[in-house]
């Protein structure tokens, strides 16, 4: 013990110095650890964004090469806000996003809670929840289109047997029917995503917490509010963030099921139409940038909700 006394002051100084250099080292290690991700993202993801932005500042309609594709600044963006069809697509997209995310959260979270308990066959149920997510969107959209078919669709069949409807309906022929069909199909496919992630979050809550709470006499509701919810909140928010962004960018589901008919043209579909159908690369690129901006905005909002929980240490 005495031998250490003279070294203590030395250690103290060293520790003071190494604290800052420790911090620096930490920061450097952090950047090294993040570098592969950064490199890939820069190479692959950033170039298309820059190129698209550049194109959006020009008038570029491919079928009119003689125009020389002049620079027009933000004219394309102004055009979006004067375009009723673009506005309609934004409204529809927002409606769709809010409704689907709401139901996905409800059903996904509920399913995760159910599966968190140990019961016979839990493994099978857990494997099953991935089935909707596992089927490629193009295949499942076609499958559901078949299900909604007015002549021999499963949907009509079941509803008729349950006496909910009298005769087979043409669900996809109206705007409300189409909306409902799209929501059901999307929720079916993606609630499992939320369920799986929520479950992972629930599984990481130490069982000891539940045990000691029970010993303290807490009831199920209190346990849920004070232990489960707070600890799983952030996982759920992150899952929701991704789902919101995906829902906002909905594309394949719509092109396969309705083609954008009956008021179901989403922003991505309209952007696509401008870009690839009308070959108006300038305008289509501007719309892509708009989608990007909204995505960024939504992420910001979610970040606020997360506070600094994710990165606080």
């Amino acid at each position, binding site marked *: 013990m005495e031998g250490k006394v003279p070294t203590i002051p030395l250690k103290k100084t060293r520790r003071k110095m190494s604290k800052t250099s420790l911090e620096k080292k930490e920061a450097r*290690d952090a950047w*090294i650890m993040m570098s592969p991700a950064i490199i890939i993202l820069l190479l692959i993801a950033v170039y298309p964004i820059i190129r698209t932005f550049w194109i959006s500042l020009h008038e570029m309609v491919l079928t009119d090469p003689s125009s020389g594709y002049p620079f027009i600044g933000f004219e394309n963006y102004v055009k979006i806000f004067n375009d009723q069809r673009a506005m309609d697509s934004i409204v529809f997209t927002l409606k769709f996003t809010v409704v689907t995310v709401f139901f996905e959260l409800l059903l996904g979270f509920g399913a995760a809670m159910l599966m968190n308990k140990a019961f016979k066959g839990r493994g099978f149920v857990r494997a099953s929840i991935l089935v909707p997510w596992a089927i490629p969107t193009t295949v499942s959209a076609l499958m559901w289109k078949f299900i909604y078919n007015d*002549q021999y669709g499963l949907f009509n069949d079941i509803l008729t047997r349950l006496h909910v409807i009298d005769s087979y309906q043409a669900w996809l*022929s109206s705007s409300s029917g189409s909306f409902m069909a799209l929501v059901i199909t999307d929720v079916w496919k993606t609630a499992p995503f939320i369920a799986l992630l929520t479950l992972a979050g629930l599984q990481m809550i130490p069982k000891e917490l539940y045990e000691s709470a029970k010993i303290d006499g807490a009831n199920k509701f209190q346990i849920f509010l004070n232990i489960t919810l707070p600890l799983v909140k952030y996982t759920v928010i992150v899952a929701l963030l991704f789902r919101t962004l995906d829902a906002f960018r909905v594309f394949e589901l719509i092109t396969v099921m309705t083609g954008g008919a*009956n008021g179901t043209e989403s922003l991505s579909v309209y952007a696509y139409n401008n870009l690839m159908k*009308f070959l108006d690369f300038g305008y289509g690129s501007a719309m892509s940038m708009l989608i990007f901006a909204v995505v960024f905005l939504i992420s910001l909002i979610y970040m606020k909700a997360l506070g600094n929980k994710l990165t606080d240490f």
Partner: protein
Amino acid sequence: MKRGKMKKLLVTLILAIMMVSIIGCSGNTESSGEASNGEGNEKVTIRFSFDQGVGEPTQKIVDKYNESQDKVHVETVILPQDANVVHDDFVNKLASGDTSVDVMALDVVYVAEFAAAGWLEDLGQYFDQSTQSRYLPGTIEGATYNGKLVAFPWFTNASVLFYRQDIIDQLGVEVPTTYQGWMDLEEKIKDLDEIKYVSNFQAAKSEALVCNWVEYIWNNGGDVLDESGSPVVNTSNNVEATEIMLDLVENYSPEGITTYNEPESEQVFLDGKSLFIRDWSGFWNSANAEGSKVAGKVGATTLPIGPNGEEPHSALGGLDLVINKFIDDEHKEAAVDFLRYMASEETQKEMTLISAQPPVLKSVYEDADVLAEIPFYEKFYGIIEGGKSRPMSPKYAKVSDAIQRNIHQALSGETEVKTALDQLQSELEELNK
């Protein structure tokens, strides 16, 4: 110390990526080795991209070509049968000046668009006037833009009215030639168990709708554009024609018809539930295929006309072959040789026989073997001759989109027919400026 471990991590990652690329590259060299292996010195390889719609028969034709000579080797790049997917794939490649595909099978409606974008090689120098005259004039017209031949027709198509011959016989009536004539049969089929709907066609918001609608217009003495190319969609004849279409949709067709493309509508007819179906000529084969409920019971005739129509016109479809403007001369030459093969009498005949796609070469329609195999072509030739093209324009995508939206709204009951057509008229006028 920590650094070292960090580096190790990075190195492992990089190695992993490299390994994967190597595995990847082996996929690449494998296939490019095939073509350059073995055969003659000056063999040029060209790539031909088309869709799975006629995938199998085309592959056979291509194989035959490759075997028949050793100057050109054609590799096929098959895309899914989805007009949008195919269009987009071509656009993505051509917009970046890509030379990985030399010959493409392009839907006739896109020819003007691609030509205007400057992506198509001028073919006038390779196929002279007398050659061109051996082909159906409508198809040559459709392959011409601004007076230049920018594509060469491969096969064509036109719509036909297929109907249940057995039911017509049973009812003891003549095959109707007007829309009203068909609608009048509604009363009579009520007593029959099997037939639920008199009418059946495609009214989903898609290109199919455009084809259907223009036929109603043409068959009632109207048109989309007048001689000078200005839109005239809201004339009284056109309003009348669209009202007839709406009537059929609401009262005589399957309930979901505004969501039907060809597959859905065909299903209904094949189940024996509709009296007629308007569809592309190739449906003849499906209707009479083994296992079809209606095999042997199907008749074919021209489309009906409306009160102000004189003769029926079917919409023309089909695929043209185009050559990528950006490839080098050696490949262009090879591509032209391939095109000549595809347009030759022998190949046109064979293609028709194995693919059930109508040829563009006139003489094939009179070929004895073909008529023996497909007697239906005798009647069909008249239909093809009377076929009309949809309005050709570099802006066709926008025109089609405008038609799809407005007409679908009218057929869904969301707007009045007159309002929809007025709206369409103003949108087309905008585009024309």
